[in-house]
């Protein structure tokens, strides 16, 4: 029996004139996600997509579940447009569910050429199933299982289970964003959330060897690869930041290290956004989490760029972020202990509410343009794909 994975995408179908663009992108993203499986044609009809399932249902579902823009999927058996055939397919589906319980049949009939109307089909099929099974009863109000029958021009689709997916918008439909990826718990989650709203993500990591280890860089690469399973290949910029840190340490007052360091990071991010045509900077900041994440700090840090800075986690508690990190499977990577072993650059008493004037004054001790140009020269770019 032919099986397909039926794909529902809610929000996109609401998007009016952009709908085609969204659908095309979703199609493209799905193709990418199952690109390494046996080739097949994804069909699009009446606001649904259908992926033929060969013998690889699990693999297809696992991949497609990670594609943003999809609300839910169902594995549907395809039958001829004939009531007897439909009933026997439905019977097989119900028999595959162990334990029994209550059910009801729901029919949709976009194909108005089918001789029976929806309620009639439901009634006929329901009667048939009740007669041919044991342990099942009908409950039209609170059934344990809904047997869905969709009558379409190319055939009838029968399915019982709806698998919820991530929702959101297809990656790439809302633009490109540059994610500051530290290797901690927060930033991968922030990137994931940006992707959820349709952003194509590129990553930027500030690497402070020898103050952090090469393993911490490996970890960031692994993290970028992990989030690429949600939206396809990711470009990762690795910026060599050590000399900037040293210069700050040597020439600036201790309480402004963090503020000035973040300003330098944002300046570099701003330049890379220009090069890579990204229209937003994303960070994993959460309000009040550390000294640089107060409103005053953010204001002073933001001052160096005109590009919108998106902070998807700004109102999240640490525990909520951890929950997400576990859900998207970045947590275990993030807590590997190769993180900053760098304490040299963290002052004991950082300025929690820095003011722009004194910070700008302190920065005058640095040759900002030169430092940034040199560090950009040493920036590596990696292409990371899910597999």
């Amino acid at each position, binding site marked *: 029996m032919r099986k397909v994975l039926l794909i529902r995408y809610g929000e996109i179908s609401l998007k009016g004139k952009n709908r085609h663009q969204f659908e095309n992108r979703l199609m493209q993203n799905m193709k990418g996600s199952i690109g390494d499986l046996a080739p097949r044609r994804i069909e699009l009809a009446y606001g649904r997509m259908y992926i033929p399932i060969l013998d690889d249902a699990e693999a297809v579902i696992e991949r497609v579940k990670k594609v943003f823009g999809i609300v839910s999927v169902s594995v549907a058996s395809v039958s001829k447009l004939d009531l007897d055939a439909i009933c026997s397919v439905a019977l097989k589906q119900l028999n595959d569910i162990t334990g029994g319980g209550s059910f009801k049949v729901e029919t949709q009939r976009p194909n108005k050429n089918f001789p029976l109307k929806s309620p009639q089909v439901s009634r006929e099929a329901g009667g048939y199933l009740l007669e041919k099974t044991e342990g099942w009863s009908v409950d039209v109000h609170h059934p344990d299982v809904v047997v869905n029958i969709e009558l379409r021009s190319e055939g009838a689709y029968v399915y019982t289970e709806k698998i919820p997916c991530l929702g959101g918008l297809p990656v790439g439909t809302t633009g490109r964003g540059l994610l500051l990826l530290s290797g901690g718990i927060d930033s991968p989650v922030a990137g994931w959330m940006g992707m959820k709203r349709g952003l194509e993500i590129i990553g930027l990591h500030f690497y402070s*060897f*020898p*103050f*952090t*280890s*090469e*393993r911490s860089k490996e970890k960031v690469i692994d993290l970028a690869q992990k989030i690429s399973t949600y939206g396809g290949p990711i470009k990762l910029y690795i910026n060599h930041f050590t000399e900037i840190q*040293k210069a700050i*340490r*040597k020439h600036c007052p*201790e309480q402004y290290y963090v503020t000035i360091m973040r300003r330098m990071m944002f300046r570099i991010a701003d330049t890379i956004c220009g090069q890579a045509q990204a229209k937003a900077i994303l960070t994993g900041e959460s309000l009040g989490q550390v000294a640089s994440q107060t409103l005053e700090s953010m204001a002073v840090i933001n001052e160096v760029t005109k590009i919108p800075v998106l902070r998807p986690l700004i109102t999240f508690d640490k525990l909520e972020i951890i929950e997400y990190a576990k859900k998207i499977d970045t947590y275990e990577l993030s807590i590997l*202990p*190769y993180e900053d*072993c*760098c*304490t*040299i650059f963290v002052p004991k008493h950082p300025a929690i509410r820095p003011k722009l004037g004194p910070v700008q004054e302190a920065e005058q001790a640095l040759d900002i343009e030169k430092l940034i140009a040199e560090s950009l020269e040493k920036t590596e770019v990696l292409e990371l794909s899910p597999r």
Partner: protein
Amino acid sequence: MNKIVYLDNSATTRCLDDVVVAMSDALQNCYGNPSSMHSMGLEAERLLKTSRKTIAEALRVGEHEIFFTSGGTEANNWAIWGSAYQRKGRGRHVITTGIEHASVLKSFQRLAEDGFKVSFLQVNEEGIVDERQLEDILTNESIFISIMSVNNETGTIQSISKLVKIIRSKTPNALIHVDAIQCFGKIEIYPRELDVDLLSISAHKIHGPKGIGALYIRKGVLIKPFLIGGEQEACYRAGTENVPGIVGLGAAVAAAKKELTANKKKLELLKERIINGLSEVGGAHINGPVNAQQAAPHIVNMWFEGIHRGEVLLHSLEVEGIYVSTGSACHSRREEASHVLKELGLTGEAFTGAIRVSLSHLNQEEEIDYFLHKLKEVVSELRELAG
């Protein structure tokens, strides 16, 4: 980064050319299973025999007292559990020191979970076992004692023969195990002369391959097998023998035995060069034994005033092509502080800022000079940054 100065020889070593040649010959030309009845099996068995003989001669023991293992960890695990479970009818008290390798410490922890009474001997600030404490805790119930001959982090040499005399005079029931993994091949160690029952060695610390080691079990001493299911190693250690590994171990041991005196002299010379050079770095200190007689010639554990993170120093040296370690290799990956340095009672920078330099006879004086030169530069730069 072209120049490589490898000073992490207690973590592992480069295989000698002779070792590689012997192993690749075994891999390609002598791939029979020693248990096979045909001539190819016999040929492989001969290789085992030759290697076993080489090791037996190097330790001045009988061939039948050498049992191959998958490395030092298995040799230690086996010696400890095999002895404790064999002898548990005679008593339940087992003893080790607080500065052993994790493969020993964790084995004793497991014994404690299984109801054995475990005593951990204390050491002084040089890492030397408290003889009086040993004398005090020994009873007729004491059935097993494990003590390492050379500590992997500080290079402290224990006076094994003195400790053995104390044990033998206090209890007739105890088996004595020596973890000689950091000692064998560098300092003379002969289990019969020391009157110990079990002794572990490993190939990859003496320019042999990883994944192979051996346990000396004194003739007449019974311990329980650790791996079961085959008749290899006189039914004591099941599993098809790692023939190429065993050949590599044999070749490494042969080379170490032949050059033992010359190598030791070379190591002493290199170490002296380091210690003399350290005085020029300024604010440099050595952890562990001061008295040369209790210090292994190939390990120097050092720290520097004003440097409180050993790993930053490690990575800064890495930039210059110099490879050292902090604490012991496995520790630094997990970012746990060294239990050995803690047992020595070290605190502050001596504890968190320590690095270990471990030498091989393959190191050259020029390499040491290069190391000292770069060390001085790096230490002063880090001191400047730390302010």
